[in-house]
């Protein structure tokens, strides 16, 4: 077996590991092993590649691998749990940028050596546009999730995008027709970068997870088309796997948010402020309460449902809540948690936090299971959740979250809402729930408030 065959065989092993890894990642029991299999596949691929005859200057590689690993591990280990989606977006952008650079370098090389054929130039053009869109799109998604970018674009942004798409198409044709001039390729990269920026900018932060899944799919396609440039089977296969699974994941996530993937991408920039005015909604209709009063109410409750949201994560209140649940259960009160699929800032956010506080898996109800049971619930405690319990999703067709399925906490006998103020949640809209007759507001930091309730319960 010659060296080329050996490399190909290693790539086959790598591809198989990626397939098994992806398969594992889709099932809760096998997810962790799946991730490790994916990493093993990557290791095999790297080792096998390093014996490639064409590789002569190892120091560049060593330096690049060392720098990249150090930064990657640092970011991955330091990041807060709540910032993971941003980080994934950023990583994803780097992957897209790397694809652009690789395709560019190989294209330049092929031009120098006079080896450009149609496959190379078509694939290089595809990589340039897809990779550039992935890069800037991901960086914008990152900035939006960090809340360090608040720009929503300008009127007519869609027309500009359509024009840019046409321009990039023209440039791609030029890359193929006139491959001798590498400037066409870099121009294409530049236009792609602007396009990625402008496509993602108008999208609301709440839709970002869907966008990131889509960009992830694009970065897979960029890798795959880089594979066509380099005639590399593993890049083609692994890129296509990620490209396809990313599209499906985008689809699944959109469905979970009750959006279509297309409406996420091409929705008009949301009208700032939404359909309702906060003062109008809340004026004179807010009932405040205290930790002691809440404790009294809870003492007589038979069934309590806790609805956690992003505020739970910010306040790091998960251990206090676990404590509260134990106190209530000691008093023969049934306690369950209702988990909205998009509560928090990433899918599975609440599950991660509550798992950390060792709350039993069986006590976590998914939305569909939870909603019919609010009517038989004495007290619903809304802890740092806002959008996911906003009834205007059902009642106000003009609301930015109209049509999103929400937890119908209003059906409970008493609703206790714990948050610091009346300020809105992620979607930036007021919540009529807070003004409902059966709703009591307990203002304060989530952790402090729950701790106070626990104290009152223990004393009472």
């Amino acid at each position, binding site marked *: 077996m010659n060296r080329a065959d050996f490399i190909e065989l290693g790539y086959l092993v790598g591809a198989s590991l990626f397939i098994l890894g992806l398969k594992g990642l889709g099932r809760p029991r096998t997810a962790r092993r799946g991730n490790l299999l994916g990493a093993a596949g990557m290791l095999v691929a790297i080792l096998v590649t390093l014996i490639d005859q064409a590789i002569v200057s190892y120091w560049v590689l060593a330096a690049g*691998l060392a720098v990249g690993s150090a930064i990657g591990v640092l970011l991955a280990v330091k990041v807060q749990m709540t910032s993971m989606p941003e980080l994934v977006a950023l990583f994803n952008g780097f992957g897209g940028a790397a694809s652009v650079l690789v395709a560019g370098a190989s294209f330049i090389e092929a031009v120098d050596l006079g080896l450009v054929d149609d496959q190379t130039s078509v694939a290089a053009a595809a990589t340039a546009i897809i990779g550039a869109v992935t890069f800037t799109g991901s960086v914008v998604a990152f900035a939006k999730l960090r809340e360090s970018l608040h720009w929503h674009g300008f009127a007519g942004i869609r027309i500009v995008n359509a024009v840019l798409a046409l321009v990039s198409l023209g440039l791609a044709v030029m890359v193929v027709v006139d491959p001798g001039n590498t400037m066409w390729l870099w121009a294409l990269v530049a236009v792609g970068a602007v396009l990625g920026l402008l496509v993602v900018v108008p999208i609301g932060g709440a839709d970002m997870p869907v966008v990131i899944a889509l960009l992830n799919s694009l970065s897979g396609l960029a890798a795959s088309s880089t594979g066509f440039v380099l005639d590399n089977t593993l890049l083609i296969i692994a890129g*296509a796997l990620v490209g396809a699974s990313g599209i499906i994941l985008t689809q699944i996530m959109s469905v979970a948010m009750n959006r279509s993937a297309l409406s996420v991408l091409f929705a008009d920039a949301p009208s700032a402020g939404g359909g309702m005015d906060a003062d109008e909604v809340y004026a004179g209709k807010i009932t405040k309460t205290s930790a002691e009063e809440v404790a009294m109410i809870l003492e007589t409750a038979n069934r309590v449902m806790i609805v956690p949201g992003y505020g739970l994560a910010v306040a790091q209140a998960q251990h206090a809540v676990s404590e509260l649940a134990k106190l209530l259960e000691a008093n023969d009160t049934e306690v369950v948690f209702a988990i909205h699929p998009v509560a928090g800032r990433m899918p599975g956010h609440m599950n991660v936090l509550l798992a950390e506080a060792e709350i039993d898996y069986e006590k976590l109800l998914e939305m569909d299971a939870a909603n019919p049971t609010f009517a038989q619930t004495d007290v619903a405690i809304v802890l740092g959740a806002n959008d996911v319990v906003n009834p205007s999703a059902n009642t106000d067709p003009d609301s930015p979250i109209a049509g999103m399925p929400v937890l119908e906490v209003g059906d409970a006998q008493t609703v206790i809402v714990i948050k610091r103020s009346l300020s809105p949640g992620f979607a930036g809209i007021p919540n009529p729930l807070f003004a409902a007759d059966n709703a009591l507001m307990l203002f304060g930091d989530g952790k402090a408030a729950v701790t106070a309730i626990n104290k009152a319960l223990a004393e009472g």
Partner: protein
Amino acid sequence: MTLVISLTLFVLAVFLGVELITKVPPTLHTPLMSGSNAISGITLIGALVSAGADHRALTTWLGFAAVALATINVVGGFVVTNRMLAMFTTRKPKRPAAETEA
């Protein structure tokens, strides 16, 4: 390898990717996204070939940047995914351990 063979590999992998990711529960969306993102860093392989070829300074530097960026994607991606998934699974082992101790 002819273009059509490459295309064939691409199409098979696309079908496979679609079949692999069906009915994933929402809880796993984030780790799945992040794990498959790490896999898409496979472009690193291409970067290694580019950077290692020592063809001319420009491409070597492009290659170096590509290696570094792709490595961040790959290494960071797998590590962060593992961290996430560790959170999901710590609960289970801890409980029985506590019970056997008691």
